[in-house]
Structure formats: C-alpha cells, structure tokens
C-alpha cells in the first residue's frame, strides 16, 4: 500500500479508565494510521470504539499513553484548534434542533469565518452529496427529517470544511440497506484515496470489510487485530475475530438456504 505516506494518527499505548469503572474502556491501544487510509473500527457494543474516537479529538484525555496527529502530540495542543481540524460525526447525530439544516451544516464554516457566499455554496453542495434536494430540505428543522435523513445531514455537517481527518461514529446506523450502499460508495468517493484519513466505526462486519483499507477489530477495550480486510478474513488473529467472521458466514449460509 502507500509505503511513504506520512503517519496521520498514532496511538501509543493509549488507555482510558472511567471513574469508578473496574476495567479499562480502552486498554493499551497502539495503532499507526497513515495519511489517506480509510480505517474501519469494528467491535461489539461497549468495546471502546467511541471512547477511542473521543480521545482522538480531546473530548476525553487518555489516562495513559499518547496520541500523535501529524507528528504533534495532542496533549500539547489547544483542544479547540485540534477539534476544528477534525470532522466528527457523533453516534447520536446531535443536530441542533433550533437550527435549520442549512444552519447546522454551516456551523463549522461560520466558526472559521468563511464568507457568506462560500458557506451558501458549500451547504448546497453538501446537501446534494448527502442525497437530499437542497431546495426542499435546507430550510427544514431537524424535527422535520426522518432519522436516516438526520444522520445524512450529520455526516454533511462533519464534512463541511473538508477536514483532513474524519471521525465517523456509526454514521449509517439508521439508514436503510439501499441508501446505505449508495452512501458507502459516496463516502469512498469523498475519501478520494489520497489525502484524507477516515476513522469509521461500525457494528457491521460487511461494512467494515468493504470500506476499510485496514480494519481494527476491538473487543473489551483492546484492538485484537489491525490488518487489511483480506488478511482478517483469511487469518483471524484470535477467537473473537474468528467468531465475527463465523457469524458472517452463518448469514451467508442462511441466504443460500433461501435462494
């Protein structure tokens, strides 16, 4: 793969233990992610995926270890500056109910003081990208959108200033199978292969293997395997990864039985 690419994100022995918890939510994670990679993070509920993302843009600080973005240790950086360089689509979507779709997408461009025309153009472009007609949707409030439409606007909002690093926490959770396939392709196109680094959390093993240039499989706070989709399918590193692949195969069998 990209041999000489710069390292975009590096986790060095990162651990996080929430107050009062008897276990590490993220446990001694070390990963090195190159610029331009599309990393999918796969893991069961509670395995620490969201916690890992939140530490990446300093919504949480690790209890141990370091996180390095483009050579800079983020503990030394101003959190607000770090976050403005990173797009983050949170798991709960979190559109602001008192703002229209257009205003929601424009939040970060406004923080960065873009001029109005540039913001307007960008907002329309992103709404179309999310598969929604601008004239129909821009002036609606989030309460007037379906769950899946809200999620797509959440994704558009995170993409607004075209950040070099994107953290996407289950951005397709509420989207139906057909739209999901379209959006997966669209997201791959946006990623564009070279300059942008995506961290994409999902429960769905098919989605993880399809989208990821590499897949990080998480279980109980640890990364049990970090490898290309082919290698994960061929050589599962431990019992947990094996059981994931197995569950996927089971589903295939179920389909074969139906047809």
């Amino acid at each position, binding site marked *: 793969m990209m041999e000489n690419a710069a390292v975009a994100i590096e986790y060095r022995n990162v651990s996080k233990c929430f107050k009062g918890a008897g276990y590490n939510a993220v446990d001694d994670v070390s990963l090195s992610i190159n610029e331009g990679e599309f990393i999918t993070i796969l893991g069961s509920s509670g395995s620490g995926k969201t916690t890992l993302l939140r530490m990446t843009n300093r919504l949480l600080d690790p209890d141990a270890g370091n996180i390095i973005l483009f050579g800079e240790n983020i503990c030394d950086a101003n959190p607000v500056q770090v976050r403005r360089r990173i797009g*983050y689509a*949170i798991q709960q979507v979190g559109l602001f109910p*008192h703002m*229209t779709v257009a205003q929601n997408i424009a939040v970060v461009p406004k923080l960065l003081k873009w001029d109005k025309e540039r913001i307007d153009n960008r907002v329309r472009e992103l709404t179309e990208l999310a598969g929604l007609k601008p004239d129909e949707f821009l002036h609606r409030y989030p309460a007037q959108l*379906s769950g899946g439409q809200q999620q797509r606007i959440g994704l558009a909002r995170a993409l607004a200033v075209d950040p070099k690093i994107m953290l996407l926490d289950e951005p397709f959770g509420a989207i139906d199978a057909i739209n999901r396939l379209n959006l997966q392709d669209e997201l791959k196109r946006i990623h564009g292969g070279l300059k942008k680094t995506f961290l994409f959390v999902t429960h769905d093993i098919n989605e993880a293997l399809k989208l990821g240039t590499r897949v990080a499989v998480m279980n109980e706070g640890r990364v049990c395997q970090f490898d290309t989709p082919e290698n994960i399918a061929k050589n599962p590193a431990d019992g947990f990864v094996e059981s994931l692949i197995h569950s996927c195969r089971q589903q295939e069998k179920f389909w074969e039985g139906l047809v």
Partner: protein
Amino acid sequence: MQEIWGNIVLYFENNMDAYFNMLQQHISISFRVLVISIIIGFPVGVLCVVFKKRQKMVIRMFQILRIIPSLAVLVLSIRFLGIGTGPAVVALSFLAIPPILMNVVAGLEGAPPFMLEAAKGMGMTPLQVWLRVRLPLALPLVLAGIKTAMVEIVASATIAALIGAGGLGQIIFQGLSVRRTELLLIGGVSVAIISILSVLILDLIDRFFQRYKRYKLH
C-alpha cells in the same frame, strides 16, 4: 344587575383620569418588577449552573421565599423598607425571581449531554457552546418561567396598594371597605385583562423564538 352596570358607567364618567392613572401605575410597577427579576434571576440561574456546588443552596433559599405568601412578603417589607412604590417593587421582585431562576436552571441543565458534546467536538469554545447551543436550547423554558412570573406579578401588584404603591389594588380595596361591588368588578376585571394581554404578548415572543418547535416529526 342593571344597577351595577349603571354604577360602573357612573364610575368611569366621574373617575376616568384616576382610573387610567391607577392602570398606568399597575402596569408600570409590574413591568419594573419583571425587568428587575429577569436582570437578577437570569444571571443567577446561569451562575447556579456554572458553579454547581452552590446551586442547591441558592435554589432552596429562593424556594423558601416562594412558600411565604405574597401578602406576608409585602407586610414584612414594610418593616424593612417602609412604604411606597420602591419597597413594593423590591418585595414583588423577591416573588418573581424564583420561577425565572428555576426555569433558567432547568433549561440549561436540560440540554442533552451528547448535543453539548457535538458542539464541543466541532471546535466551539466553551463560550460559543453557551451562546450558540446551550442558551438557545434553554430559551423555551426560560420564557415559560418569565410567563409564570408575569402572571404572578400582575396579580400580586394588586396587593401592593396596601403598602401605598398605588395601582388597581386601590380600587379593589376601596370597594371592599365601602362595599361597592362595581369597584371590585372594575378592579378585578382590569387586572385580569392586563394579565391576559401580557401572556398574549409573551406568547408571541415565545412563538418567534421557537419556530422550530411548531414542527413535529411526521
């Protein structure tokens, strides 16, 4: 019945100026109290949320003030503040601050944590999170608190006549002392009308700020 109606007409024929004077006093006292209680209640509410540790204490203090009947507060205030419009305004403000303060706190605390996290995660500074997300989300409850306070103020301002603050309470208390039903009616209905009108005005403001609330998920 006809006699009462006749007396009402007679009253207005002879006391038009005095009536409007009292009406104006009533509105002016109510308005001043409302402004003062917003100026105090709002920032204190914000501070309560910022400094969580003291919050319980402050809220409890104002809640106790609320349990005391407004009449008692007014009578007590004579002790400490004397009589006249000034003391009445101060005493009534004590009654109007709690509903505003408590709704400011409830509104600000009601913002879902994940929404604040989304705002923070997008790179808003703490001040921007407050101004662009937290306060706008609290606004509906803040306005509801102001509405509650407003109704209470207009009603309680009636009693302020007892400590020499003027207002429509004068007509009512005069009516009580000389047993003239038409005076009770004029005073009572006027207070009710002010109360209704002020709620209507606040409703309009409310609707303007909460356009997004009119839409329900379909």
